[in-house]
C-alpha cells in the first residue's frame, strides 16, 4: 500500500480500505438484544390494540333541534336584526308618525269600499314633499 513516508499519514487508498473493512465488519445483533427489541415491539403493539379508536365524523355528537333551528335563521347576527325590528315596531305603535296614523284611520273607520282600494295612495307623503318643494 502506498503511504506517506515522511508524515506517516495514511493515504486515501489506505483510509478507504480501512473504511471498507469497517463496513464489512458490521456487528451481528446479539440474540439477547434482538429478543429485548422484539419484546418492546410486542408490548408497544399491544398498546395500539388497547387504545380507543379515534372518533370519526359519524360518531361526533349532533346538535339538538333548537341549535339547528337557531343556526337555520342565521344565529346571533340574525337575532340582533329581529331585536331591532321589534323595538322599531313597538316604537311606531306607541308613537305613530302622522302619515301612518291618517292612513290607518282611513282603513279602520269602515268608510272605505272595494273601489277605494284602487285609490290607495301608496306614496302619501309625496304630495306634501312636492308642495314643500
Amino acid at each position, binding site marked *: *500500500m502506498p*503511504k506517506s513516508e515522511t*508524515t*506517516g*499519514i*495514511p493515504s486515501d487508498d*489506505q*483510509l*478507504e480500505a*480501512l*473504511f471498507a*473493512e*469497517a*463496513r464489512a*465488519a*458490521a*456487528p*451481528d*445483533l*446479539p440474540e439477547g*438484544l*434482538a429478543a*429485548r*427489541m*422484539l419484546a*418492546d*415491539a*410486542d408490548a*408497544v*403493539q399491544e398498546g*395500539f*390494540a388497547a387504545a380507543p379508536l379515534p372518533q370519526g365524523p359519524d360518531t361526533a355528537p349532533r346538535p339538538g333541534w333548537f341549535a339547528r333551528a337557531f343556526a337555520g335563521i342565521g344565529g346571533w347576527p340574525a337575532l340582533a336584526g329581529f331585536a331591532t325590528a321589534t323595538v322599531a315596531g313597538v316604537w311606531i305603535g306607541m308613537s305613530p308618525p302622522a302619515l301612518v296614523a291618517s292612513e290607518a284611520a282611513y282603513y279602520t273607520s269602515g268608510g272605505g269600499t272595494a273601489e277605494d282600494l284602487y285609490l290607495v295612495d301608496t306614496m302619501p307623503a309625496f304630495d306634501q314633499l312636492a308642495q314643500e318643494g
Partner: protein
Amino acid sequence: MAFDALSELEDDALLVLYANGDRDAARLLTARLAPRLLGHAQRLLGDRAEAEDVAQEAMLRLWRIAPDWRPGEAKVTTWLYRVTANLCTDRLRKARGGHRGLDEAAEPEDDRPGPVERMQQAARMDALQQALDSLPERQRQAVVLRHIEGLANPEIAEVMEISTEAVESLTARGKRALSAALAGRREELGYAEE
C-alpha cells in the same frame, strides 16, 4: 402476509404493517435495521454495552412512532440514524461529567486468541475506533455516516439537520483529522512491514 413476501417490502411499508398489528413486520424490521444501528452507535460511542442500550432505545422509539408514520415522507433509516445520533450525543454529554478513560473505551470486544488475521483485523478496527473517538462529535458522526455507513451527502444533511455544504466541510475536516490521528499507528494498521 408470508415472511418472504414481507421481506420485499420497503421499511416504511413494514412499519405501517407493524402499526396494524403484524408481528412478523417487527421481526423483519429488527433484523434489517438493528445491526446497522448497533454498529453506528458503537462507532459513535466506542462502547459496546452503551451502544446496545442506544440501539434498543432507538428501536423502541420507532415502534412508538409507527402509528403516526407517514409513508413516503422520510426514510426510516434516516430517521433512525438521527435518533441514534441524538441518543449517543446525550450519553456522551453525560459521560463527560465522569471520566471514561481512552483505554477503557478502546477495550477490544473479543480477547479470545484466534487466527493471526483476525487479531490483525481487530487491531486495525481498534485503531480506527480510537482515531474516531478522538474526533469532535459532529465530525465523527459525519465521517462515520459518509465513509462507513455509506450514506450520500444529502441524506447525511437530513440526518444531521444541516446543509449539504456543511456536511461536505465536516466530512473533509473529519477525514483529515482521522488521517492525522491514525498517523502514529503504523503497527496496529499493519503497515509496519511495508
